[in-house]
């Protein structure tokens, strides 16, 4: 189900004030708005099995610290920082390695000749606007499915970059990865979604 922006909570100061006062609607709003994003970050850093626990701990820390929140960043960025720090501290003693799947290719090598020039023919997609694509529920399902099939680190990078508007250097800090890794993960995630749309368009 898609989220719709509730203008009542557009003013962050009002939202935080209501949270501190204990307004149940404000709590429902922040959980609905930010929980899945926090989960995405936690799953990328600590893995699926303990991500729920890490996110719950992050929520509790955030709510306890809310009266000290100074508003120097957005509430979203603050919550992401808390869950990211919590997740990183859980894996601090482990040697985590971000697998970049060596040998991965956005486009199969047999689409190019020995000089690296394309031998296939890429046609323009039907001239649908993204809004028109949105109205196509079958295509939406394909995109959702392709997203769920991505590794957690790619899902988090794609979410933070293309859906939440974080810059590459911010993503590196949040996920504790190098900028070259972040770029590779983002490209692979986009290429996988592109590939799923391409297959649909070719039908």
């Amino acid at each position, binding site marked *: 189900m*898609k*989220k719709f922006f509730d203008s009542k909570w557009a003013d962050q100061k009002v939202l935080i004030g209501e*949270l*501190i006062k*204990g307004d*149940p609607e404000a*709590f*429902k709003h*922040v*959980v*609905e708005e930010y*929980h*899945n994003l926090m*989960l*995405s970050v936690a*799953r990328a850093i600590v893995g699926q099995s303990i991500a*729920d626990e890490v996110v*719950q701990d992050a*929520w*509790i820390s955030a*709510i*306890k610290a*809310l*009266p000290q929140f100074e508003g120097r960043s957005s509430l979203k960025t603050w919550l992401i920082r808390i869950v990211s720090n919590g997740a990183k501290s859980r894996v601090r003693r482990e040697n985590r390695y971000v697998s970049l799947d060596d040998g991965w290719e*956005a*486009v199969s*090598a047999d689409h*190019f000749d020995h*000089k*690296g*020039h*394309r031998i296939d*023919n*890429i*046609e*323009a*997609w039907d001239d649908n606007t*993204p*809004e028109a*694509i*949105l109205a196509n529920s079958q295509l*939406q399902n394909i*995109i*959702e499915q392709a*997203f*769920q099939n991505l590794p957690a680190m790619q*899902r988090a990078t*794609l*979410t933070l970059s*293309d*859906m939440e508007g974080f810059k*590459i250097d911010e993503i590196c800090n949040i996920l504790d990865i190098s900028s070259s890794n972040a*770029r590779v993960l*983002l*490209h692979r995630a*986009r*290429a996988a*979604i*592109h590939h799923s*749309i391409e297959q649909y368009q070719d039908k």
Partner: protein
Amino acid sequence: MLNCKDTVTETSNYINKDLPISKRIGLFLHFMICRCCRNYLRQFEKTVETVSLVKPSELDKTNKLDLARLLQQVNKETGSNH
């Protein structure tokens, strides 16, 4: 001169304007002369734009209403401790 294979690997960085100027110009020139890569770039741009509209999110079984209530309780206890 960049070939089509080089272009594919840099498409994402090109869209993000996250490349040194010399490489950006090289890609721009390649897109000018290669219809296939130009179409690939447009498809890629449309993919990024569409994903930002579809906004797929993590599969999650959390009962968000229960979590909101728990946090409300934590907030109440924190407030009463001050």
